[in-house]
């Protein structure tokens, strides 16, 4: 599964940089700064579009910050379709991304990835990345059997 994304710094408003101390997540690639959001970060986060604004949300429930949310950062589209998240009042969100990271492969993402946003017991927003079974191409490229659900894109 997708272990991280990168988003061109130019896509992120300055105000968010300061509020979420994103500075240490900035890396350069080809001379252009980008912000990397990795699941293995001490405080995993993902950018999400919510109510027409870009926000930074907690990515999944690593380290069991919540007692009842699943301890993962991903969910299958099929699991959502089967209604497993229904009681948590989930909101579908878009996770903007310029690149995805899977087993060391950075691959281009044109718009982003679909996500599911739910509140934990303290009403803190937690986002899960939605995945689906890998396409043939994705599986050969990354050797992974699941891929993120990309927004209006098939690879």
């Amino acid at each position, binding site marked *: 599964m997708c272990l991280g994304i990168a988003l061109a710094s130019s896509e992120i408003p300055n105000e968010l940089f300061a509020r979420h101390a994103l500075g240490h997540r900035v890396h350069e690639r080809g001379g252009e700064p980008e912000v990397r959001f990795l699941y293995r970060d001490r405080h995993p986060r993902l950018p999400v579009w919510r109510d027409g604004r870009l926000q930074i949300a907690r990515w999944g429930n690593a380290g069991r910050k919540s007692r009842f949310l699943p301890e993962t950062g991903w969910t299958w589209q099929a699991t959502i379709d089967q209604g497993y998240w229904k009681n948590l009042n989930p909101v579908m969100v878009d996770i903007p991304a310029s690149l995805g990271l899977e087993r060391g492969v950075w*691959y*281009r993402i044109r718009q982003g990835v679909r996500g599911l946003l739910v509140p934990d017991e303290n009403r803190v927003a937690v986002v899960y990345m939605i995945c689906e079974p890998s396409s043939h191409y994705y599986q050969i490229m990354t050797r992974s059997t699941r891929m993120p659900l990309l927004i209006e894109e098939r690879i």
Partner: protein
Amino acid sequence: MTIKQGMKAIGHLDADCFYVSAERVRDGFLRGKPVGVLGNQGACVIAKSYEMKGAGVSTGMPIWDALVKCPEGVYVKRDFRWYEVLSRLMLEVAREVSPRVEYYSIDEFFFTVVEPRGGTFQGLADSIRDRVWERVGVPVTVGIARTRTLAKLISDAAKPFGALAVMDRGAEERLLSDRPVTEITGIAGRRAARLAPWGITTCLDLARADRRLVRSLLTASGEELWWELNGDPVRSVQARRPAHKALSRGGSFGESTSDPAVLHAWLVRNLERLIEELEYHGVSAGRLTIAIPYKSGQLGVGQVNLAVPSDRFDVLLDVARPALRKAWIPRATATHMHVIAEHLTSRSDCSGDLFEPPARGVRARAVAQLKREVNARHGRFALRSAATLALAPIYRDAANSHDICDVRGKSCF
């Protein structure tokens, strides 16, 4: 008063890391970054940017090796529909400056040029490069010289985003003295090894060698190169592609396989693609060859001559199956397959098989017609042989229905 006829020359235009440049035309994010375009269903790097090349990644490298060399690389999926669009736009520019353009490959053209009145060949080379850049957004390098072999060597030397016209012998020789003979198209390992004992290692060595010696070492085609290197154009620019001697379809599996059922499915897929091509060119195949490269380095080959040339699926599959059996090495892992049609004859020259029950032919023609009509309306491969079921994931990916070989009219491949 006499009007001086403008001097004639040959131009060579070659896009710089074409697939990557094509991706950058529609995606500014990729500019300046190390970029690799993946082919073979995602298994290999088929094109890399200069940044990625600088990190040690070469064309054809498996992605897993490329990741080690260039962990910061950005990978994108190949899209030959888009590359063909840009290729044809570049071709249009070339046709504006030349009455005679050869569509050599998807990103390389040869063309004839005349020295512009009041201008120079160098100015012309610059303007062609700039016009492609402004109009199409793809960086290209243009070489202009007295022959096509020289023009190509010059554009190779001037990369990237270069433009260079070399018309006098002194400048030609300086250029040739720097280049190893292997940079000449058509002189690879074995031919270069034949030249080495004679002290012929650079292009200039070859140009200065005795013509008869070159002919004895490299046959008539080598002698042609000798003339070309010495500024005598003997290889012309072919505005129209000569008729095919052979047509073939195939390529890498992406995922290697030793499963005979999967090999059979690839045979049928490649055969259906080959038949589309036979139909497009209006020819029938008199001989069919199945070639299968294996991971071990072995090559399996099966070849069958047809009693009567054909372009029919049922007939060709009947001969392709035993050819596949011959090319098959049990338990060995196959990586590629090529299905090659030779002894091509124009369909109108084919008399048909007089020993076949007529009803069979009528039925096969009707099925072929139906297949064409359904696929014309609903998309390529919408109706196909059920023997391809083992390859469902390949058909599900739309990128696989338009490949480099589907870009028609190129004289090389």
